């Protein structure tokens, strides 16, 4: 419970069934991310979004908990292609 804990460490406790090679969220190619998409690098509760060296936002959706925050925040910019994982895949809560 230290103040320097990282979200990645917390996610090891979660159960996932990852649909390999079929990410359910994709970022459309862009040169400069919108403010909304950039915000997701901080706002995603499991840290799926990161900034590349050349200034684009990238996603690794494996730890995604399917909350939908990124979909809501970027709805007006159209930068995301957002779907739920295929039936049965994705996060599997033990407690919820």
């Amino acid at each position, binding site marked *: *419970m230290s*103040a320097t*804990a990282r*979200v990645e460490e*917390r*996610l090891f*406790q*979660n159960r996932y*069934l990852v649909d390999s090679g079929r990410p359910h969220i994709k970022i459309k190619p862009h040169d400069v991310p919108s403010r*909304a998409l950039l*915000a997701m690098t*901080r*706002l995603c*509760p*499991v*840290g799926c979004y990161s900034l590349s060296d050349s200034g684009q936002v990238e996603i690794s959706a494996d730890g995604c*908990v*399917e*909350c*939908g*925050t990124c*979909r*809501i*925040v970027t*709805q007006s910019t159209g930068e995301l292609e*957002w*779907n*739920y*994982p*295929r*039936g*049965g895949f*994705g*996060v*599997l*809560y*033990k*407690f*919820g």
Partner: protein
Amino acid sequence: MIEERFDAIVIGAGPSGNAAAYTLATEGLKVLQIERGEYSGSKNVQGAILYADALEKIIPDFRDDAPLERHVIEQRIWTMDDSSHTGMHYRSDDFNEDRPNRYTILRAQFDKWFSSRVRQAGAILLCETTVTELVKDLQGKVIGVRTDRGGGPILADVVILAEGVNGLVGHRSGLRPEIAPDSVALAVKEMHFLPRETIEARFNITGNEGVVIEAMGTITKGMTGTGFLYTNEESISIGIGCIVSDFAESEVTPFELLEAFKNHPSIKPLLVGSECKEYAAHLIPEGGYKAIPQLVGDGWIVVGDAGQFVNAVHREGSNLAMTTGRIAAETVVSLHRRRIAMTRENLSAYEQGLAKTFVMKDLRKYRGIPALLHANKANFFGLYPQLISQAMQTWFRVDGVDKVSKEKAIFRSFRTGRTLGGLIGDAFRLVRAWR
């Protein structure tokens, strides 16, 4: 795959979908329920408090076998600044009744149980299946669904959308607008495990008694939001949530916000020695009455979070979900019995039914609160908690200063903090929105 025709299809197996499917199946209708998770509850997150009354109206004997954690005998409401909390506690042995009023639950386990009762009642449950779109006839009436399992459409007289806050089906089918970032909260939550004796000693409870804490103040760093801590049998649910648009403008990450809340001097001792076994995040629709979308149309009904049925002021949601699911199902049963078509006009009996319940009465009562809190977040979630804390400290610290001077100092801090006009204005606006 499934070539039959159903009386009703229910999308989702959370509280609203299970309430609807159970009610339909017990009345003898042919029901198909579709859930994208491995089992009912595997995708669901909540605090979580179960309000007995709403479930009792559906399954009166639920206490016999539902997985309940603790019944709530003590409610704490905390206003917090960075180093203190000012609390209102209500504890009563009256809550140790034969049929307790509120329980803490674990949603993954509770939903799985509810789902087993739905199947016992005769509904067919299809898990690991995501509905991809609604199927409409040439007149635009919804007549069924397509799923990611492929194959042809599955047909039904009516489709009940219990797909949750982030429901894509209704939105993509043009039945309801997208949720605005300022009317939805993002909550993060952890499950912390401790021996039950430790929990009971720490919270001054025995047996299956439970304590819940709802907290607001500087813990949300100036954003509109609240934190919570609920005692389960052998674990503590701890979480915090803020309005998404506030998060988007803030530099604070949700995970850091939860870490800071857990490390608050009033919270930290309650969690000492615990082991975190799950980290979850979920959206909560908090727009209230004004955010409720169109609820019925030709061949479809919306229930639960998908219909924005959350009372943010009282932290109620699953009871609204179950009640809307039940009333939607009762509407469908009534039309089905009388062989009346599931048109928008006929299904509007659902809206009329809801208007008579606490669901619509409560949401209507608080229709002005979300906008008020959001517009005045700096005061309600920052300034006032700090002023209250300072006032308490001035009052309780015995330091040779006389009481009249202390009273003056307290009033002065409020007036310099907000001005008299501002204080009266906030009080007036709050009272008006509350009425």
